[in-house]
């Protein structure tokens, strides 16, 4: 069958709401968009471990320490599952885990703007769960209906866990909101730091070509602006009910359309941060990944060698 005919049938399946499986034929463009999306998603989960990981040794109670430890572990678990999907899709290109991880160190894969930011207080550790995981639930919920079935299935589990993370973040945030003046100030400071990056998080109103093609392939199903509006709508009452303020004097809701008007985040600054890894913590976090991945390649090599040897020793003699 010719390529164009195959693509036409593929698009018919997509438009009929059918789901694509890993071994189904797919156009190279579809595969590449999936790899780009899932690779970035997986790496973002892994890079997202670092801002919170710093707070595990400092968590202020046994309960919080265990919960945060478990949360960071979940994020790494998401990263691992997503990378396995990306590895499957990348097989025709001969690229596996080592290469997909090398891409982070070489700046060939981006990760979410929020994970380039500083998390200087314990309140940031809570606000990340509260706002970032809350935002991630909104973007991931639209992917639950993705045309790529393995991604949709995996997201089901991920979203379920993210909602625990959001609740964990909310519990930390609530304790601070009900605490001393110092705790409340710490919380307000963190909200002030994270609000603008969260406005950027959902992407520009005018979506890029790749994002538009992902809509056409039904890899994703909602626009950036729809997601952002949903987030604002959900979080304005949550934040104000904590007695905290939102650091945006322009923020208001149109009483008729219910649309939120908000200040534009510094698009240029955050875009550059993601593209060039030039955020306040980009390089420090990439350095931690380098420490784990590149500087411990010798461990993985030793493990592989030893396992190979064990397998060959257990081979029956011919």
């Amino acid at each position, binding site marked *: 069958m010719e390529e164009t005919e195959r693509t036409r049938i593929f698009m018919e399946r997509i438009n009929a709401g059918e789901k694509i499986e890993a071994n189904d034929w797919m156009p190279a463009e579809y595969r590449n968009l999936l790899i780009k999306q899932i690779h970035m998603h997986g790496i973002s989960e892994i890079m997202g471990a670092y801002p919170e990981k710093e707070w595990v040794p400092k968590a202020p*109670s046994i309960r919080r320490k*265990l919960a945060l430890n478990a949360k960071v572990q979940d994020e790494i678990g998401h990263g691992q599952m997503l990378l396995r999907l990306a590895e499957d899709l990348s097989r025709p290109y001969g690229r596996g885990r080592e290469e997909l991880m090398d891409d982070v160190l070489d700046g060939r894969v981006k990760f979410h703007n929020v994970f380039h930011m500083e998390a200087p207080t314990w309140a940031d550790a809570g606000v990340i769960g509260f706002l970032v995981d809350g935002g991630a639930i909104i973007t991931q919920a639209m992917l639950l209906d993705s045309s790529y079935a393995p991604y949709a299935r995996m997201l089901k589990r991920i979203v379920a866990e993210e909602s625990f993370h959001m609740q964990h973040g909310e519990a930390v945030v609530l304790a601070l909101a009900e*605490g001393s003046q*110092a705790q409340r100030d710490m919380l307000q400071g963190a909200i002030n730091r994270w609000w603008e990056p969260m406005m950027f998080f959902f992407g520009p109103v005018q979506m890029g070509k790749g994002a538009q093609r992902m809509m056409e392939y039904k890899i994703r199903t909602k626009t950036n602006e729809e997601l952002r509006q949903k987030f604002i709508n959900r979080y304005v009452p949550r934040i104000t009910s904590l007695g905290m303020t939102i650091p945006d004097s322009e923020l208001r809701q149109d009483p008729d359309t219910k649309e939120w008007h908000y200040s534009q985040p510094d698009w240029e600054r955050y875009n550059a941060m993601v593209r060039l890894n030039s955020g306040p913590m980009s390089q420090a976090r990439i350095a931690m990944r380098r420490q784990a991945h590149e500087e411990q390649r010798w461990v993985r090599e030793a493990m592989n060698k030893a396992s190979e040897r064990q397998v060959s020793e257990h081979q029956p003699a011919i």
Partner: protein
Amino acid sequence: MANLGESETRALIQLIKPIADDEWIVGHRGSEWLALTPDLEEDLAFSSISQDELGHAQFYYELLHSLGLPSADELVYLRPASGWTNAQVLETPNQDWAHTVALRYLYEILDDIRHEALLGSWYQPLTDGVRKIRMEEKYHLQHFATGFELLATGTELSRQRLIEGIADIWPRLGDLFAWGGSEEFLEKLGLPNLAQAQLRHSWTTRMEKTFHDLELPWPGPMPGVNVNGRNGEHSQNLSKLLDVMTEVRQIDVNSPW
């Protein structure tokens, strides 16, 4: 516990506190490896293990609280370094992966011997918990025994680094087997197998077999107890660890977090 006499209570505290502190410090140091281990799969396994260790410590701290000590959170967050009774070697800052695997394997063997002996206690709240803990510890030991073996038999480099790690740890193992003060309390608790000499003997027997099987050089005579963490004697490493650990809590000790 209404039926516990004062001296039994004291003996139980003397027994449980060092074990609790060992588990906590090991879990804390383990959690520092989060997102930094050699691969994602190891990260998942190791962070489960760290959470288990912290959870075991929490069980022991709650037991200590039931015996009249402050709450678990207070024991962890409000105790000065001199009040901690963990073995000194466990407070060592993390070094390379081979060092961590070596330390954890050496520790897990002791932990296994200690927990097995604890099952002989007449104090049921303790044995009930230990029975559950042993189900998890079995996997911890398996995990680090495998890691230890793979590094020893992997490449020249991994074997070399493992040997260097062991050489660094070995001379500082002394108080790992020790208790604070005299060992009379073990008589009272009917746990003679936990005497330092017994622990050392059982541990050395098992270790000699591993070293022999893996053809690793025996690192030298077992060190004696030069400084005893069980009596609250610690290096700067513990003070630094506690400074980091309590940094947030110290902002407001009494406020809920």
